[in-house]
C-alpha cells in the first residue's frame, strides 16, 4: 500500500546516504525487512534493524544510523518510543534518522502538526536518545567479536 511505499522510500533515502555505493558499481543492494510484530514506533524499529543488517552484511558504511520516534502529547510533553496506543492519542508523531558522526539528521518525517519550537525540542530529545542506541550497537558488536 501507500504507507509501506512511503516507509520504503524513507528507508531507502537513509541507506543511500550512508552506504558507500561507489565501491560497488552496477550492483543492486536489496534490503528485506519482515515485520514480525508491531507495537508502535515501527519506522524507527525498521531503521535500527536496517542499520544492523547492513553492519552484519559487511557493506561499507560511512556512518551508522539509528531511528528515534517522538510523540507530542496534547499537553505539549515529548514522549520517546511511543507504543501504538500512545501514538494514536498523540497530537503529532515525529521520526528522525540520526547518524553517528556528529549526530546529524539523515531523515525526518512527521505525522500530524507541530510548531517549529516543538520540533526542535523533539529533535534534541531524539539526538540524546540516539547515544543509547549507538552504545547498544557497540555492545552487540563487541559481544559478537569476543565470542570468536
Amino acid at each position, binding site marked *: 500500500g501507500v504507507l509501506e511505499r512511503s516507509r520504503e522510500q524513507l528507508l531507502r533515502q537513509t541507506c543511500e546516504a550512508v552506504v*558507500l555505493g561507489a*565501491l*560497488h*558499481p*552496477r*550492483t543492486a543492494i536489496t534490503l528485506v525487512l519482515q515485520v514480525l510484530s508491531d507495537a508502535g514506533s515501527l519506522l524507527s524499529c525498521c531503521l535500527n534493524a536496517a542499520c544492523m543488517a547492513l*553492519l*552484519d*552484511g*559487511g*557493506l*561499507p*558504511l*560511512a*556512518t*551508522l544510523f539509528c531511528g528515534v520516534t517522538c510523540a507530542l502529547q496534547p499537553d505539549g510533553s515529548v514522549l520517546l518510543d511511543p507504543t501504538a496506543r500512545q501514538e494514536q492519542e498523540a497530537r503529532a508523531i515525529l521520526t528522525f534518522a540520526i*547518524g*553517528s*558522526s*556528529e549526530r546529524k539528521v539523515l531523515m525526518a518525517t512527521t505525522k500530524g502538526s507541530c510548531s517549529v519550537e516543538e520540533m526542535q525540542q523533539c529533535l534534541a530529545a531524539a539526538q540524546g536518545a540516539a547515544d543509547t542506541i549507538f552504545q547498544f*550497537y*557497540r555492545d552487540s*558488536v*563487541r559481544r*559478537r*567479536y569476543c565470542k*570468536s
Partner: protein
Amino acid sequence: MAAESGTAAEALVGQVVLPGDLLLLPAHYDEDAEGERLRLSAGGAPQGRLLCGPGLRRCGAGLLVTKCGLLRHRPAGGGAFWVDSQQKRYVPVKGDHVIGIVTAKAGDVFRLDVGGSEPASLSYLAFEGATKRNRPNVQVGDLIYGQFLVANKDMEPEMVCIDSSGKSSGMGIIGQDGFLFKVSLGLIRKLLAPKCEIIQELSQLYPFELVLGMNGRIWVKAKTVQQTLIIVNILEACEYMSAEQRKQALAKLSGN
C-alpha cells in the same frame, strides 16, 4: 562544522571499531612534515608508506572505519592497519585463490561462478601446458581452483590457473567426487593461518584432501562418503565451537 575528534589508531588495535569511527595516525606518518626529514634515532618511526587495508578509507588527517570488526596492525614494512570483519559475502580481490564453478562455455572463455556479483571469466589458455591444439577438458559444472588476475570494481573479474612463471602450482580442475560447501570468510582465514590447530587435529582423525577457496568455499574428499560428511560437519561447526568443545567432539569420534 566541528571536526569529529578521533582516537589514536594505535590505542584501538585489537578492539572493536564501528563504521564512522575516525582513527588518527601518529605524526610521523605525515608525508610533508617539516623538520622530520633528518631522523637520527634508529628505533623511531618505521620507514615506508602506511598501508590502509580492508575496512578503512583515508579521510583527511586519518582513517575512516567503514566496516565493523577488530582493528589489526602490522608494524613491519611501513605499517599496515586493517579491520578484521566477519562476513559471508565475497568481493573479488586480485591475487586471491578461489574455487569457482563452471556455469557456461562461451567460445574460448569459461564463465565461472565465484560467489561475487559478477561471473568471472577464465580463458582456456590459462592452464599449464594448454595450447590452441591441446585444450583442457573442462565441462559445465566442474570445480576450478584458480587465482584472480584482474579483480576491481570497474571490470569483470578474470581468473587464471597458472602463476606468473607459467606453472600451475596446485591450481586447475578439481577432481571427481568430494563435497563442496560454503562457510564464512572469517573461518577460511582462520583455517589458512599457518599451523592451524583445526586442520592438524582433523588430519589425525582421517586422511583427507582439502581445498580452501578465499570466497568461502571448501572442497573435501576422504576415503568414504561417511568420513567426508563427518569432516564437513566438523568444519562447519568449527565456526561456533570453542577449542575445548572441538577437542571433545573429535575425541568422541576417534573413540568410536
